[in-house]
């Protein structure tokens, strides 16, 4: 770490463009970004996947699969070199039971994401309406 840049350090490193988790797969962990940026994309049927968000250091993703057994709804891939650490579902669920403030932190993050999604829906509907009104 401090003594050799090639020596492995905390978490796991992903190369630019490498997929960290894939839409449709099932998951059993939360991912925390230690270094770098990731992009969250979905396949909307177009030629290129649609970018939902870019997340940075200290952000986390993959939390939805902790609370349901449904498949991942998006793909997350590295934008540049990225280092992430996983948090196991089993341990996290136990800590959430002991610690309501940790539940609150995750809930707040999910609320933030719902707000972003709502504003995105509004933006898309507005764009659609304007497109329809065109001659």
């Amino acid at each position: 770490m401090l003594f050799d840049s090639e020596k492995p350090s905390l978490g796991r490193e992903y190369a630019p463009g490498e997929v960290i988790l894939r839409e449709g797969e099932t998951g059993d962990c939360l991912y925390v970004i230690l270094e770098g940026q990731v992009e969250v994309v979905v396949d909307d049927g177009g030629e290129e996947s649609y970018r939902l968000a870019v997340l940075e250091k200290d952000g986390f993703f993959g939390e939805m699969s902790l609370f349901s057994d449904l498949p991942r709804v998006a793909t997350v891939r590295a934008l540049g070199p990225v280092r992430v650490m996983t948090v196991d579902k089993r341990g996290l669920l136990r800590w959430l039971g002991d610690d309501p403030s940790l539940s609150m932190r995750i809930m707040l993050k999910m609320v933030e994401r719902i707000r972003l999604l709502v504003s995105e829906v509004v933006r898309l509907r507005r764009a659609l309406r304007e497109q329809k009104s065109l001659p």
Partner: protein
Amino acid sequence: MELTSGARVGVVGGGPAGSLSAYFLLDLARQTGIELTVELFEPRDFSLTGPPGCNMCGGVISESLMQKMAAEGIVLPKALMLDAIDSYVLHTDSGSAAIRPLHEEMRIVSIFRGAGPQGAESQRPLPWSSFDQHLLEMAKGLGARHVPRRVRRLEREPDGRLRIHLLPLKGENPDQDTLFGVYDLLIGCVGLNGSGVRLFEELDFGYRPPKSDRAWVAELYMGAEEVRRRLGNAMHIFLLDVPGMKFAALTPKGHYATFILLGEGVNEAVAREVCHSPAVRELFPEGWETPVRPCHCQPRINIGPPVQPFADRVVLVGDCASSRLYKDGIGAAYRMAKACALTAVTRGVSGADFRAGYWPACQEMDQDNRLGHLLFSMDGLLRHLPPFRRAMLTVIREEQSASADPRRLSSALWDTFTGSAAYRDIFRRAAHPVIVWRLFLALLRALWSGSR
């Protein structure tokens, strides 16, 4: 008896339990709209190398704590992390076996509590930072005020609040009134190594510190290249047939290898015997001699439950109250600091509030430690039987070579060494019929080969 805006909280002791108690208290108070004044009393200067800047511990951050902090949004800066650890190597008098987790990532790191071992000052500017200083800065970042002074006396006011008196500084009149302030809540995070516990015993609310024993910790300078070559990214655990020893470990830490020895009444003689055993010497550079007096300490470690670690407006957190037996002391401080802060902010600060909110977390840990004592006693008995040691290594090697296997024994040992699971979980897994059966078969093979 609740904390309301304007309340003043004193935290005595600025190790992990103290800084995290202040941090969580301020964080939860902010979330609930309460404005607190938090003053943290810690005379130690963590920027100093050697004993003056060190809170004495092996300096390993467990897998579960790293994950918990990451989920909480607390990501440690790189400068704190001396080395990352991805595996454990178990050494016995009968051979060695590596234990690797199924996941492919590093989740355990080694740190220095202070600025590093005595003698490291020659390397200034130091390429690493102090873990305890970082936690203190986190608390200060949320508004805690650091008072770098030593507490002399605690007293209770007629209205139940608590007074803190400080020791006079050099040159000050020793007879002058040293009252520093009156507090609505006092959190004692004084560890077991100083005179701090006496301050709280003298408050006479019935507190008695937990039973303790001593560990032996030494920082052995080997140079980063030798550390990497000899220890790799693994923590090396020794279960040797040395009287008095329960557990010894060598942890890579940059230029140093940290030697940790646990057991009843361990001392320099036991440490020397362990260091001279072939299993340990094999990991030292050729011709290398253990330094005669390396930077070392014999910290007291908590091995039993405390008595009455709370009362109205006062609570003890960390090693001076409930901690985990033989492992993950920093993780235990984190958990108990959170339980203390949650109780104080969401319930209140009376003795009844701490009994309802904080005491169950202490009791759960103390009960789990009883199972830990049982596990270590069983290990102590079985370790002196060479065929059993060989059987255990055989089962571990078989599990490690079969990637699809549930790796029951390996995972139980992994969690024992890393502190990732409660002793009750480890106990349940270690007593699984499949493990017992495989150990029995391996033991028969070891006895058969021994008799031939």
